């Protein structure tokens, strides 16, 4: 109780020590983000008369955003990509790997763990090129089917989701493995002694116990996937026919291909807002977890 009170009282020295961090955060993070929000409401262009002499255009860009059918499509594709690959794919695959590794023999555990973590540590460029070669015509995926099918261009969103799951599941596995190790064995043994099946024990005991870890993992993977520009850009460039044109790609296209920096900044701001909501949820869940643990 006393410790808590002490922590809540403002301390001059602590404030002073935090000051450099606060200044750095304001200068290098909050400042640029606020400036990006301002740019999103201007007519700044990469080139042309408004490249240097741009000005505030009020709600003009927002009006365009609301009436931009490609933006709404892009938002929907972003939701599909994040939900399918991050929330469902990465979590399910990560959990499956974590459980399998927990029950595997030592050498298999080490080998699978190492391979999955290496996949996670690969630069996005490498992962994207591997999956491009794997899924395009002549790649292993199409040859496995004994045809010259172009899986990447036929099912573009499905393939980029798979690539994202492949590249991110290692992170998820590490987080969930730590969660599984924290489950008290006596609780699981008690369940078994009561006659519960392995599946029932997993579903009714393990999952509720590690629920905070799962939620944390989902939020972190969501944030990682939201910012995953390189993977899709290299594999499909947002195509074919805008089928994988998620918001970060659309923002890039507007700002650095069409040269409309203002509108591109506004699209980037939408990504920032979505990421902020997930980050806020993450902080809330983390705090709730700490309180529950205390």
């Amino acid at each position, binding site marked *: 109780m006393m410790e808590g009170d002490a922590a809540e009282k403002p301390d001059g020295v602590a404030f002073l020590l935090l000051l450099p961090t606060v200044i750095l955060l304001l200068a290098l993070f909050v400042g640029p983000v606020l400036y990006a929000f301002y740019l999103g409401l201007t007519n700044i262009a990469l080139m042309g008369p408004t490249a240097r002499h741009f000005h505030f255009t009020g709600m003009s860009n927002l009006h365009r955003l609301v009436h931009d059918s490609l933006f709404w499509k892009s938002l929907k594709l972003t939701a599909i990509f994040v939900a399918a690959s991050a929330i469902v794919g990465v979590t399910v695959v990560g959990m499956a790997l974590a459980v399998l590794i927990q029950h595997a023999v030592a050498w298999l555990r080490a080998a699978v763990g190492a391979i999955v973590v290496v996949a996670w540590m690969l630069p996005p460029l490498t992962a994207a090129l591997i999956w491009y070669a794997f899924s395009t015509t002549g790649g292993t995926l199409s040859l496995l089917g004994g045809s010259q099918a172009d899986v990447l261009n036929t099912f573009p969103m499905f393939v980029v989701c798979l690539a994202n799951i492949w590249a991110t599941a290692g992170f998820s596995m590490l987080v969930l493995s730590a969660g599984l190790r924290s489950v008290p064995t006596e609780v699981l043994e008690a369940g078994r002694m009561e006659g519960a099946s392995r599946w029932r024990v997993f579903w009714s005991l393990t999952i509720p116990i590690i629920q905070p870890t799962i939620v944390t993992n989902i939020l972190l993977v969501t944030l990682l996937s939201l910012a995953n520009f390189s993977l899709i850009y290299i594999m499909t460039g947002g195509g074919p*026919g805008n089928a994988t044109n998620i918001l970060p790609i659309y923002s890039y296209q507007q700002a*650095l291909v069409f040269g409309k920096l203002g509108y591109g900044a506004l699209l980037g701001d939408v990504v920032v807002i979505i990421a902020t909501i997930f980050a806020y949820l993450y902080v809330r869940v983390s705090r709730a977890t700490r309180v529950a643990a205390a």
Partner: protein
Amino acid sequence: MLEHRRRLLCAAALAAAAMTVAGGTSRPAQAADKTVISCAYSETYVFDNEDLTKKWWGGIKADFEKMHPDVTVQLVPIQGGYDDIVNKLSLLYRSPATAPDIAQMATPTVDRFASSGYLLPLDKYLAKTDWWKKFPPVIQGEGAWQGKTYSVNTGENDSMLYYNVDLFKKAGLPVPWKPTSWNDILAAGRVIKAKLPGVVPIWILAGTGSGDNTVLMGVDTMLAGSSTPTIFDEKTQKWVVDSPGLREVFGFYHSVFSEGLGAKISDLFSTSGVTAPVFMIPKNQIAITFGSNFYGGNWSKLVSTPYWPQAAQVAAVVPVPTVNGKAPNISTTIGGWDLAISATTKHPDLAFELLDFMMNKENQINAANWAGFVPADTDYVKDPSFINFAAPYNELSAVVLPYGVIEPPSGDYLVWSRGAQEATGALAQHPNTTVDQAIGILSDYVKNQLDPSQTEVLK
């Protein structure tokens, strides 16, 4: 003791800061005495390979510095593709401290750099040169904005039709082949498909993988030879999203892909779609190619990507005909790379002297041969050192050049281009896509990105 240590640390920090400031402001005596002219250029995109980039720009630097011992030519290479060069140059120009005295830029971007206030008008300098008046008017116009000239072309790319003589003979088609209309191309493609399964009958780029190059070498080239070649209507200041010409072009695409005459979409949609035929033609994988003039140079011994000594015997080349053979029966777009001088340069006269040196015959023909260009100077294109470097390709590229159409210089052209890429992508990927649907894709895209009021339909 603690206080003493603090003072020592403070003194050390101050000394370090002072040294940094001193180091940041002082320059080697030799560099300070010399006038520096900076040149920004593409390191990896414009020339056929990086060695040739270094050879050309390194040669310019060495020769000019020998002629002017008091001058240092500072090279500022830019890595990456087309968009990367545009973006990097845009950033460099934002501050006079980083703006290059001379910059190499793509011709369609000159207008936008000039309207940004970044470029120096060159008219008074150009009037004194003997080479400027030999440029075809269409190429002189590429560097113009609001009545003034801001850049000088250093080489163009144009479009041509390549056909494989060996495959044509095997299929029983006449050689030499002289197509006079688009129907002639389709007819030859149908024979190839029937007689030589496994060979791509007609290579024409589609989709978004290669960006605007797809449109430049495909839709725009064909549109130039259609009934209505207009992309941007100067009179109404509107973008054409439906016209008889566009319907003729999309109709050709529809025939190619619905009849199975086109290439695989994995090849067409790839980012290397522009250069893929350079490797596929020597392997007898393509019969007819809507290609660019640079292919021939790539097959030369110097460039060797890949070296193909039999090129002249196997890969013949003809102009892309117009839709129905209307004289002069040549359809092509042109697009190249220019040199411009910064509006904030401290040494405009010296910068132009360097630009003038780059424009001499030897440097321009080297640039053309090493980057796969057609020189803009009408005398240089007749020189044997250019014609023989990649015969017969260089000679024909010079013949079609004056008929070239340039893409609209407005930044919004890239929106129209993207719409056309998506329309051709749909035609290639879904062969049952109709011409009406392709027009709808282009029209919807441009209307959504710009505004319906900025588009029009030509009858």
